[in-house]
């Protein structure tokens, strides 16, 4: 009978997981090792995101063999979420320090943005263009080959 850990997310919902699942997160691992294993607050993460993260960690406990074809297809389906969810997963993976989830989600975003124009990038990340039109034009001219 494995140890159970209770995780409380931002809105107070509690999630009960096996210790092995929680240990996938280096952040939680340190907290468990430090003895606060009864009820760990995860205030930065909302319930739906925490549920997804737990789903990921559970799958990883089952098998983390990179050559496992099932695992590959699990990853592909796992990241088929909308963009805000994907970004929230990145933030959660970062906060909880789950390296392979962070890699997976960052790579997914990278694949999503790689073909886009600078304007589209600004929209996705909500970035203000602080170049003057002349400055921006100069960058485009210098690197015209990359802009086609």
């Amino acid at each position, binding site marked *: 009978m494995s140890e159970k850990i209770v995780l409380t997310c931002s809105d107070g919902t509690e999630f009960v997981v096996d210790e092995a699942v929680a240990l996938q997160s280096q952040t939680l691992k340190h907290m468990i090792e430090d003895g606060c294993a009864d009820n760990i607050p995860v205030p930065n993460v909302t319930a739906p995101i925490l549920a997804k993260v737990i789903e990921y960690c559970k799958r990883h406990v089952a098998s983390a063999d990179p050559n496992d074809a099932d695992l590959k297809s699990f990853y592909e389906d796992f990241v088929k979420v909308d*963009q*805000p969810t994907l*970004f*929230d997963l*990145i*933030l959660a993976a*970062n906060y909880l320090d789950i390296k392979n989830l*962070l890699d997976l989600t*960052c*790579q997914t*975003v*990278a*694949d999503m*943005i*790689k*073909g*886009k*124009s*600078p304007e589209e*990038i*600004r929209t*996705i*990340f*909500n*970035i*203000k*263009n*602080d*170049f003057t039109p002349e400055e*921006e034009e100069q*960058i*485009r001219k*210098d*690197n*015209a*080959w*990359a*802009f*086609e």
Partner: protein
Amino acid sequence: MEITIADNEDLLIEILLWVPAKSLIRFKSVCKRWLTIISSHQFSNQHTLRQRSRPRQDSSLLLRLTEKSNYFYLQSSFHVQKLVPYHFSPTLVGPITIWSFSNGLFLLQCRNTEDPFKVFHVYNPTTRQSRKILLDMNDVYICVVGLNLVFDPQESPHYKVLCVRAAKKSSSFLCRSWWRHCQIEIYESKTSSWNFCGKPFVAPRSLQFDHGIYWKGGIHWEGGYFDLQDCALRNRPRIIVPGDTGTNRLRENYMEYNGYLHNIAHFPEEKKIMIFELQNTSSEWSLKYRINVDAVSGPLSVLNIVRGEEEGDGMLVVYEAGKVRGYKLQENCVKELIDFTVDPLYLDASAQFTSDRALRLNETLAPV
């Protein structure tokens, strides 16, 4: 939540480290902070290191127009169906000669500099950064007969320049010597220094030491290769062309593809191209692909060989009669990739892009 990701620079960098180099060059114009991140030496190093773990990409090409100094970029995926003009960094002054290329870096010479025979540059065409390299001076081996860049980011972030030197023609013995006395010298970017490599050797004057290809620890030229581990010049196994093919007007190109060395042999009279493959220097060549080029009437230049995105997409990229075409390796079909006839620089009935002016460009942020 988008705001939070963009504000968290560490996470932003984590994402950008997975984005291919070419897209990152474009993203320099997103905002000033992105420009700073992407241009930083540290990020470039990390990005190059990160790319090591990813499968090798097909190389794009930089093509130089015959008799002109215009360069064009031809991307490996052929999504963009035109040749895009490429401009070198304005810090490189004067007509540029590219001596060698290796996995995304070029070794070039600017013919208007203070000492064009002594000053060379290692140039990254993606970032347009360059580093000056001074050739060593030597009293005995005065002539430089070959300069080859050796760079493989999968092995090391540092690069080498292999310089083949020859002693001046000795006036004493024979009026005309068929041989040259040579010595190889290697420059290491790690230490910024030149060192002799191996013993002096004698090579026939016909042996060319330029346009070498770095493959499996050796620099390969048409006539042989230099093993960098043993510092010795060696021969490759001979290619045996199947009996019924004449070697009249044979044009050969050597290219690395898929980890193998390939010899692309074009027999214009028989209207075919044979592609031979070598697994390593101790194996034998095998005839891997045959391509019919019956429909070609004018000059044909082999530019590149690519894997493509799916299994079986392998193509031989050629230039003929104003078009860039892709001949599928495993099926008997050809695809038109780019129509250059619509470009203002197009000249009818002229081989405007040739194999020796097709430079492989692997987009990389690798610092020089």
